[in-house]
């Protein structure tokens, strides 16, 4: 049964990883503007004229 202890340890470790990821996201300003990126992602990449012809 002591394998549970190891499992719990890993599960907390993995969850802690997600917590750190969340903290990083907040820190890098991803929660500051929750609208503009949703529009920005829809803009197509630039197509150069010569690529078409």
């Amino acid at each position, binding site marked *: 049964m002591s394998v549970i202890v190891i499992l719990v340890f890993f599960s907390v470790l993995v969850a802690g990883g997600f917590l750190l990821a969340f903290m990083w996201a907040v820190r890098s300003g991803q929660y500051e*503007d929750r609208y*503009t990126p949703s*529009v920005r992602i829809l803009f197509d990449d630039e197509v150069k004229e010569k690529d078409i012809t």
Partner: protein
Amino acid sequence: MQISEVVNLKEGTLCYHCGEECVSLDIQSGAKTFCCTGCKTVYEILHENNLCKYYDLDNTPGISQKKLDSALVSRYSYLDDPNIIRQLTNFTDGNISICNFVIPQVHCSSCIWLLEKLHKLNSGIIQSEINFLQKNLSVKFKNSEISLRQVVELLTAVGYEPQISLNDIENKVKYHSNKSLYYKIGLAGFCFGNIMLLSFPEYLAPIGSLEHSFKQFFGLLNLILGAPVLIYSAGDYFKSAWSGIKQKSINIDFPIVLGLVVLFIRSSFEILTNTGVGFIDSMTGLIFFLLLGKLFQSKTYDALNFERNYKSYFPISVTLKNKSEETSIPVSNLKNGDRIIIRNNELIPADAILFNGNASIDYSFVTGESIPVQKVAGEIIYAGGRQYGSAIELEVIRTVSQSYLTQLWNKDAFIKKDEDKFNSLVNIVGKYFTVLILFVAAAAFLYWYPTSLRTAINAFTAVLIIACPCGIALTSPFALGNAVRILGRNKFYAKNASVVERLSKIDTIVFDKTGTITRTGDADITFNGNMLSPYEQKLVKSLVRNSTHPLSSRIFDAIDTKEIFEVSSYNELSGKGIEAEIDSRHVILGSALFAADKNKILQTAERLNTNTNSRIFLSIDGSIKGFFAVNNIYRNGLDNITADLKENYNLAVISGDNESEKENLSKYFGSSNKVLFNCTPHDKLDYVKELQDKGHKVLMVGDGLNDAGALKQSDVGIAISEDVTNFSPACDAILDAAEFGKLNMLIKFSKTTKTIIIISFIISVIYNVLGVTLAFQSEISPLLAAILMPASSITVVLFTVLSTNLMAKRRGL
């Protein structure tokens, strides 16, 4: 009757850039038609730089360039001043600078696209990024290739003129950030989830079947996970409770903190002494829910600014005339006796005497009245007006901060803080609640003490734990937060949640007149005199088409005809009127002094029983036909609002205007309510204060800077705004003018919200009584606590959110 050339406008010819109707088809570029040369220029810039995708993303995304005076090259010369550059720059290392600009025109995805492609227009710009909701553009550029002034000029050239005001210079805009709340919620959520997971064996296993070593291991782990939640995530509650105690008052955070601390101490004791598993799961869950409530309540409208004072509207610089030289200086350096030049569309920054030129001043910022006032040399012009027409020369008589209007901001009302004047319902309840639970807990202790000390302590702590007023603490954030959202959907934007609660307490409503209960956008234009024939109407419409004066465009809109004559020898005398030869007739439209013979005007005025002020006289071939008058139109639904509110509230109107509208107003407001005229901005503030001193809770509804004092002094100040992102003085809430008719329902909805909060308090108290009864008997198990506490929280949250939604629907909001 000889009809000369009639230009028939093709209906529906819209400007390719901004989508406004084109008055003529003359302005074209590459088979595209534009309403003005400004729009055409922007199109050509974009076309040249291969950025025409701007027009594909959204239809006619541009901003009308009609009102802008692009001829003024020197307008931004103040941006060359190193001092001003330093104050506007957020970051610089000498080579690369980052500046933030507020761009109010941003409105669609095309705007985002174009503003983030600025580097294509100028290679000196490295990157530009926009925050759409805050309408904030951050530009990173190379100092060696482009100056700050050129960046601003480039933005102006593509139609996005940044708003740079005195406020940006004096104190940098602070952005409200939720970052630390997110961290706290993240941590609390993480710990809460893991603790629940570790507590499951305890919940599910039949009592005593769990291996002892596991029990201890899980318990210790819970304790380790719970400690940072209590210390970091719940930190704000500790601070708030402590500051309450320091001010010798007990707020709702005190019993919460008490409950949390007792929870943690008792749990630690049980876990460390191996006598139980504690209640760490309940504690973290509680903190997590409380923080979620806080987040829900903190709904803010990023694009709106509730803190504006005159500095947000005043320009940074002004043209100073020194003998024959003209220099640009910051307005804060203006001294008495300085000569300044104010050009078309510029704002007058300080009280001054008109020295030279035709002044036609639009005071809409100050009073909400957009019809310009004429001034002659020697008259005092107060700060805050906007000049229409040619440049004028002024002599400053009072500095910016000492001017008539700006003095308002030196009053007491602007010094004290908002929070001081309001004691929220939940804190009042919290005070009695704390006393009560301390009393009950002590009683439980004394009751069990004769039996055993251990049971007594158990009962004492159990009461404190279970009575922790999480339900009560959650009620307000969710009810008020949801109410703010519902009101926001109806275009009533509250600054914060406490506005809703304060709004429910008012008993007196004071309205400003001009711009608040009257409409500013499209005043009613009537023609007094002999009826105009359709032919004469066409003449007038052809004439006013050529002028950009606000009154001209109103007359243009008021005349319902499509045909237009060709106009020759058109002449516009700023501040006086316009004249032209149309269809070989001499048509004059303008003020009394201008429209032909003065004597005739006076006769006509007498005959029509009117004065000559704010009348636009029409003369055709020397004979005076009559005048156009601009009437106040009251907003739609005003009669409904007053009829509805009269029953339960004291109403008053306080106006800066003369008494000419007295009769009309008493029709709406009845004779028992107060209507005051000729009030200065200071009078308005004092009137509100006087009402408050009599014990009234006052709601002020206003719109201009002249109401700013009254809005600030009042318990709740609502600003009515035609364009919510553009202009509004400092206030507690902004209401879109189009929704003015809903004002009474919005006020009543705030009352309903308060009732819902009270009902919800009762529900959570029932839970608490139930829990305390069990706790009193010392029969509280971790499982029961783990069920009872979330259950009460969830009931309260569901009840408040669902019932506010239901009541809003029932009221048609």
